[in-house]
């Protein structure tokens, strides 16, 4: 077979001269396309979508815009250009040159990290596959598809690492990532948040704000890895992840704007009758998505996290900006823990608390976004403010999975939880209501009534542009 690899799979890893990798990807690519066809965006293969395709890592290359049919999207393999002098910033290998090959002793740990990260990428595509049917505008539909193809590309990035560096086991893992499916009873995705449904656009925006933000923090800590190809892959993925979070933050922001506009227009807080989503309901969705995403950071005190850090496999966010010795031996980090029926702060070995530290960074980052939403409400002249729930609220992993807490972080009884949890989390009625608003709007320049139009443009194309052509 004579294939022009750089045309078919845009890359900066010299694919055309790597026969082993070509063979691996040739076997994998048909399975990937089959998967995309079966579980990617529903009934979308004929649409022309105005997409950004990364065709190189240069400034002008990573944002190339054009109409593309998604199955023909060129899922490329891009790593941030290598720095031949890069040294390791943390852990026991600190100061040594970054690894260009997988060290045998860390083979399984590295593979596990890559598989866990890789598994989330196709998962969110599966979770979002039916959203196209109910898009609020062509602009949003296009953003959804952009997120989807980029998650697909991120899967490619992880699969590339598995295929290129992990031999037969890596190939098997790459295939297994297409065999597990979100919400599948038999072969679910590895992490629970990726088995939840994304049934409506409000959930989608919340998901991209909260859950994709977990992705940002995970990628940022993997970008610190001593394993250079992983580090470089993640650095490049981060540039795309930023767009996903923009979709989330601006999406929720536009809903908040619309709700406030309706509140002002109709002089009421309850805008459901006017076809808007009231602020308390938005808060409930926020509570749900925040708490589910907080689980993704894992156990507060973790053996695995300690091992990953100590052996220089996975660092902290922005390691170089942290002013310490980057070893964490014999230092401590404050962690919230349960003590009887109280939540107390305890100093724990910093090495074991790496997950919690990342969760702290994450919560801080989420809070910034929430404040920007509050600014919209404030500017519209209302007193309501969103608030992130306490980290003990509605958790399924870690210390707090064994208790119930209210959004303020007070520990409550099972009985109280049963009575009150629907004041804090979306009820079936709330979900049904939100679902009822989800009517497709597919005329260029038009938008659904529950969300405000965007202020910005895509590649200088304004909102009226035909971002998706239905032919």
């Amino acid at each position: 077979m004579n294939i022009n690899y750089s045309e078919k799979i845009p890359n900066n890893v010299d694919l055309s001269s790597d026969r082993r990798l070509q063979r691996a990807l040739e076997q994998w690519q048909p399975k990937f396309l089959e998967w995309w066809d079966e579980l990617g965006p529903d009934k979308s293969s004929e649409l022309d979508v105005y997409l950004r395709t990364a065709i190189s890592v240069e400034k002008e290359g990573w944002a190339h815009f054009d109409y593309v049919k998604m199955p023909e999207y060129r899922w490329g393999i891009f790593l941030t250009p290598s720095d031949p002098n890069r040294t390791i910033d943390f852990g026991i290998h600190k100061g040594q040159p970054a690894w260009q090959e997988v060290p045998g002793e860390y083979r399984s740990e590295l593979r596990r990290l890559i598989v866990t990260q890789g598994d989330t990428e196709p998962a969110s595509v599966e979770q979002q596959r039916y959203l196209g049917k109910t898009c609020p505008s062509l602009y949003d539909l296009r953003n959804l598809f952009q997120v989807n193809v980029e998650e697909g590309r991120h899967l490619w990035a992880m699969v590339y690492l598995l295929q290129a560096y992990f031999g037969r086991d890596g190939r098997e893992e790459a295939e297994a990532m297409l065999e597990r499916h979100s919400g599948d009873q038999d072969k679910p995705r590895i992490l629970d948040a990726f088995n939840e449904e994304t049934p409506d656009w409000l959930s989608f925006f919340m998901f991209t704000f909260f859950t994709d933000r977990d992705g940002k923090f995970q990628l940022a800590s993997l970008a610190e890895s001593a394993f250079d190809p992983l580090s470089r892959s993640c650095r490049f993925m981060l540039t795309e992840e930023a767009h996903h979070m923009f979709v989330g933050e601006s999406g929720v922001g536009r809903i908040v704007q619309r709700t406030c506009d309706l509140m002002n227009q109709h002089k009421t807080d309850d805008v459901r009758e006017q076809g808007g989503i009231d602020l308390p309901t938005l808060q409930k969705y926020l509570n749900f998505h925040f708490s589910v995403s907080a689980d993704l950071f894992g156990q507060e005190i973790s053996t695995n996290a300690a091992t990953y850090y100590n052996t220089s496999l996975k660092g902290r966010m922005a390691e170089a900006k942290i002013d310490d010795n980057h070893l964490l031996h014999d230092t401590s980090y404050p962690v919230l823990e349960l003590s009887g029926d109280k939540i107390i702060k305890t100093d724990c070995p910093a090495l074991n608390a790496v997950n919690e530290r990342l969760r702290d960074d994450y919560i801080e980052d989420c809070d910034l976004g929430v404040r920007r939403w509050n600014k919209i409400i404030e500017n519209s002249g209302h007193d309501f403010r969103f608030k992130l729930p306490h980290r003990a609220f509605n958790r399924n992993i870690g210390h707090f999975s064994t208790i119930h807490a209210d959004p303020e972080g007070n520990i409550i009884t099972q009985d109280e939880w049963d009575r009150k949890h629907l004041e804090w989390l979306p009820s079936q009625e709330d979900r049904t209501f939100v679902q009822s608003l989800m009517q497709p709007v597919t005329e260029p320049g038009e938008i659904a009534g529950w969300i405000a139009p965007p202020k910005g443009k895509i590649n200088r194309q304004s909102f009226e542009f035909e971002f998706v052509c239905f032919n």
Partner: protein
Amino acid sequence: MIKFNTHPDEYQHWSLEINRHLATLKLNVNEDGGLYKGYKLKLNSYDLGVDIELNDAVQRLRFEHPEVRTVVLTSSMDKVFCSGANIKMLGLLSHAHKVNFCKFTNETRNSIEDATSCSGQTYIAAINGTAAGGGYELALASDYIMLVDDSSSAVSLPEVPLLAVLPGTGGLTRIVDKRRVRRDHADFFCTVTEGIRGKRAVQWKLIDELVPRSKFSDMVEKRAQEFSEKSYRPLDEQGITLTGLNRTIEGDHIRYDNLTASCDRQSGVVNLTIQGPSEDLPLEPESIKAAGDKFWPLALARELDDAILHLSFNELKLGTWVFRSSGNAELVAQVDKVLIKHKEHWLVNEIVHYLKRVLKRLDLVSRSLVTLVEPGSCFTGTLLELVFAADRSYMLDGNFEDSTEPPAVLQTTEMNFGPLLMCNGLTRVQTRFLNEPKMIEKIQDQNGKDFDAEEAFESGIVTFIPDDIDWDEEVRISIEERTSFSPDALTGMEASLRFAGPETLETKIFGRLSAWQNWIFQRPNAAGENGALKLYGTGKVSKYDKERV
């Protein structure tokens, strides 16, 4: 003090559900229910306390539930079957406790296999999540292993790469010897921390069947049904109840209904005296059932079992156990006759196999065993096994001065020639006279007849036969001498001498445990301050001394 007596109502870590022929034992370890402080039993990891409950359940299923034909071992945690022995616990505990822990868990695994092979109660491991290390070894003790096929659940023995120790509960031996996994496959399997899942796990014979998650519980039930149909356990029988043991500990004296133990801390000796049965013995299965756990051989087996465990775990410094017996030898012979005559009856079968397991436990203790045969004793048949099990035995030749008691005699019964096999697969008589069938025949020809001291000595049943003038001094000096030796050297010597004859799965497991694992447990690469076992969980990496020994 560690207690070995428990009851399903008190279980913290297991739930036992019984639905006619099918019992389900679900592991749901209480994180905060560890036997000691300093560790949490996360992710269905276990310590001795968890295994004491399992041992109790395995035992009760045989006696209290004749109707149960298949036992499903599974977990009530979502993605974890069992992650093996708790590592933090292993890092914290003394060497002695680690070894005792390993031995006890091994004995429990063996009792699971014994239930299947001797009692028609088949164990199925329904692995519904990760089964790592001791978790997979637990599954290996079952007859049939089912693994959920969800692209992530795997079986693994990660001890070597992760902890620098060995799988301590027979894992290495069972994969190659029991499941016939190829040696090269096993080698690979035991070095990958993440283990093996899916089709390869079946192809390599690490498991028997792979089942999708949605069909898992149905398929487990179907297999359980199939195994139940093949079982010979009785259909319409009521079990007996194993009630709490009547044990009192006052100072250095432990008292059961049929057994007393006195601890002599000065000399490091425990004197154990077994009380023979009393007159009104049940002779038929129905009356045996009515007597239940008060039936002498069963009551004694339970008491002896408890005493062995108590003394092994709680009295580490009492290194020599001296057995005596007292009672009517005729009645012991009568009990043995009843056991042999009704051996097909389910309850009698259970009692005999329990006696076998208790005596096996005794063979494996790291204590010097001495049996003293004195006038008034009743070392007949089943109890004669204590003479064969001892490292050394003394029988008084004749009588004590001024005593009118008849001199001590010994007697064999059918119980000495088959039912009470050691873990090497031989009777104690066979092990004693390995490759000397004539010696065995000679003894067996005398079945039911008394051996006086002279005859017992000539036949090789006892070691020495001092007369009343020498007795006290001989016995005292011998014991004093013994207690002056290095306990380590004694343990090693005794274990090496006790199990002559062929290797079996069990002898290999215990032999390798005591040789390899105990050696590795002492080595700095595992147990030193910077050893893998100590550092596990901290994220720190151990530096191995690369010298091969």
